[in-house]
């Protein structure tokens, strides 16, 4: 069994959603990890959920990255184990330096909650291995600061290292500024670290695992992860 740990920061609010989605569809083995904990032993994957850790005060993710658990998450990541940061989790990964770049406010200066489409463009991470080229994943976003920023040099590096994992697109998989909900550089919806085991993404896969909620495309990302982890375990 693959064991998941969902970190709870003060102000996390998608922690239960992630927990529920994992438990319902992917694994009986899922725990909450309190942000003051310094023990992440025994987990196969750590999820940094969405929400408003510390109210998003100062900057999104800026305070949460000092939670005691984060130094353990860093060690976990540098051991090559998978970490996924969703929305606020992505913002925390940026602030903690586990992923490059920073978040700015959406160009509309408004919070935006709606379904969008994203297209996987990197098939070498555990999260995206199982996805298909040209597939358009129907998935919700819900954020006020999802406008991903990185300077030109950094962007080139991302591209060169194949670190862009998801881009905003339309229902036919066409990537363009027209379908970018927040103004992010290069229509980026998700990136990974150089090693590919740390993923940050603004859209919420945990919100679209159950067909009852309108889309189950989010399952594909978790399924890909499970597949990779199972392969690794059997190896």
């Amino acid at each position, binding site marked *: 069994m693959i064991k998941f740990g969902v970190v709870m920061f*003060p102000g996390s*609010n998608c922690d239960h959603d992630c927990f529920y*989605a994992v438990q319902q569809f992917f694994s009986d083995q899922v725990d909450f990890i309190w942000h003051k904990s310094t023990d992440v032993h025994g987990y196969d994957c750590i999820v940094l959920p969405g929400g408003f850790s510390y109210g*998003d005060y100062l900057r999104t993710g800026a305070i949460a990255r000092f939670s005691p658990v984060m130094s353990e998450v860093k060690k976990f990541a540098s051991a090559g184990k998978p970490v996924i940061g969703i929305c606020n989790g992505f913002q925390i990964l940026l602030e903690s330096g586990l992923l490059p770049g920073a978040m700015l406010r959406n160009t509309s200066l408004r*919070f935006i*909650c709606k379904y969008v489409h994203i297209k996987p463009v990197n098939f070498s991470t555990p999260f995206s291995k199982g996805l298909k080229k040209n597939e358009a994943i129907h998935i919700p976003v*819900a954020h006020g600061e999802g406008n991903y920023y990185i300077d030109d040099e950094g962007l080139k590096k991302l591209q060169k290292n194949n670190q862009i994992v998801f881009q905003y697109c339309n229902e036919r998989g066409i990537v363009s500024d027209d379908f970018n909900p927040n103004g992010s550089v290069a229509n980026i919806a998700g990136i990974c670290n150089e090693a590919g085991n740390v993923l940050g993404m603004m859209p919420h896969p*945990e919100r679209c695992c159950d067909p009852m*909620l309108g889309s189950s495309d989010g399952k594909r990302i978790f399924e890909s992860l499970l597949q990779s982890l199972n392969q690794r375990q059997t190896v």
Partner: protein
Amino acid sequence: MKEQEVTLQVALEHGLTEQEFSTICSILGRTPNFTELGVFSVMWSEHCSYKNSRAWLKKFPTTGPSVMVKAGDENAGIIDIGDGLAVSFKIESHNHPSAVEPFQGAATGIGGIIRDIFTMGARPIALMNSLRFGKLSAPNVRRLLDGVVRGISHYGNCIGIPTVGGEIYFDSTYEGNPLVNVFCLGILKHEDIALGKASGVGNSVYYVGAATGRDGIHGATFASEELNEASEDRRPSVQVGDPFMEKLLVEACLELLQTDAVVGIQDMGAAGLTCSTCETASRGGAGIEIELAKVPQREKGMIPYEILLSESQERMLVIVKKGSESEVEAIFDKWDLHAVNIGQVTDDGKMRVKFHGETVVDVPAKALADEAPVYHRAFKEPAYYKQQQIINLANVREPVSYAATFKSLLSNPSIASKKWVYEQYDHMVMTNTVVLPGKADAAVIRLKGTEKLLAITTDCNGRYCYLDPYIGGQIAVAEAARNVVCSGGKPIGVTDCLNFGNPMKEEIFWQFKNCIEGVADACKAFNIPVTGGNVSFYNENPRGAVDPTPVIGLVGLIESQNHVTTAGFKNAGDTIILLGPLDSTIGGSEYLAQEHGIKGGKLPEFDMKLEKAVQSFCYELIKNGLVKSAHDCAEGGLAVTLAECAIIGSEKGMHLGAKVALPDTGNRADSILFGERQSRIIITVNKEHTENIVKQAQQKQIPANIIGSVVSDRFELKYANKVLIEESVSSIHDIYYSALEVSLS
């Protein structure tokens, strides 16, 4: 420092009457000191005591087999929904604070209503808001709208409770007096009900949450006055919300309530520490003694009067069993919240407040909380009432172009899609939102771990209530119930927010009384208990009062996912049936107001018996799996309703329209297309079920007309064999979804 001496003059300045002041003196057997006077003045303000409305609120039916906590007994009512589960819900106004500072006013409104729900031991799982503004073209309205929406978005999104629905109207009656009513619903297990009571001599009184500042002192009395120039000067009373703090409070309190340590719990809302201490003591039949010096304070040099009357947000009072203190402190510590033991429960029924050991308030808690005066205000039928009814609508010109009128109705901001608003709210967090905003007449949320779902809605048409408060009140309930039924639910409870002008004016009180009677009679007819609500008076400025607006929040239970029904058409070829009467008049309609500038006319006939029959018929059809889509026929009449079914049913690249022919009733076309008669639902069904359904309806003497069928990408509406509207679905789709944004840009 020497306290101000209390005289009748000072009492009058506090908004108390001479009579009230003398009652206070006789309760105490002496003249109150300045702090005590402040305490009485807030507790006996309209906002806290409901002194002008209480007598009439008794008209509401409040009992029923499923009622677990009754209206008026606690911070919110509770309704049993089976499986050992219950729901707690309430609606509340934050009109006056939002008029002064829309962002913070709306935000703290959300914070307040959430506290009312988790105080009951329920986990809040859904928010809604019912908003009313002046016309968008009027000065300041956009700023208000923008601020209110941002405020709700800021607070609700951060705390992680989905805002799943609501309503917005734009009408000049609300100019200068926006209505911001917010609704919260929570879920709990039967055994987890928490009460706001203090009992058990020697139990500890804890203060938890944000530190106290000089926020909103006189806020409660402020909410009970008309807005005028002077209210500008009261601006320091604006409170700032801290949704992060409240998120911690929700989690910590719900965790705490899972222990045996808590005797009672209550939020500090209006009248803050004063209200929470005297109410808990009064409910528990006990007394409370607290030491103000222990209260965490944000500002230096606060005097007892200020500490007691402060309306700082995000604070709770918890009565803790003696001996469980350390358990309680450990939980709050985990959540980085300060919990301070500020006093204990006593047995003398007194609210006793000390400041550095010296007694500054010593009053009977019950008198303060429950013995506020009750007034029976005089009322008088306003002159406009009969005058409006006799307007001769036959003189109103029919539209030159039906298509143009139709499109301008579709782009009316009160009718057009509210996407611009709900996309700013996180409506999906908690992963329960089965029907997203804009898709059905009610929001639908699932209850994880059960087969059941809830349908919730808020409704009120202020114009109807102005033209006929009694019928308007009935319609508000009927329409809310209809919305829930169209979504597949059975109504189980009502909460109401009564927004009116100055109750001292007899004409206003007449509106109030008649609306209440309408709401009450409708609730009785439907057999739905009222579980609580809120009254907001003085929504009035020198130009006049708002339309009487008794907003109804209605909750329905959906037994199975299979019953969930949305408004959009599903398949080309389906038959479109109109349940309910075809004929209408244009009295009171949006069409009459928008196109002809007439706020008047007699409302179309409303028959409660027919209403109930239509609703229960529709509900049965849905339960039998025969209905593909259902949409209540409301503002904009049949034409707009049908267009909405087409638009909502159309996705990118796949458009569904309608080909509809309405039979000649001998009436004018505008009344058939745009008239707003009640008791009507547009359903679509598989062609082969059509005949059977119509036959069943006939047997029950319910009008049911086959009016057309679903087609692809064309919207055609005929009346009396004449094509009056013919549009492509994509064009009306664009109008409907972009209108609000266009009028804002």
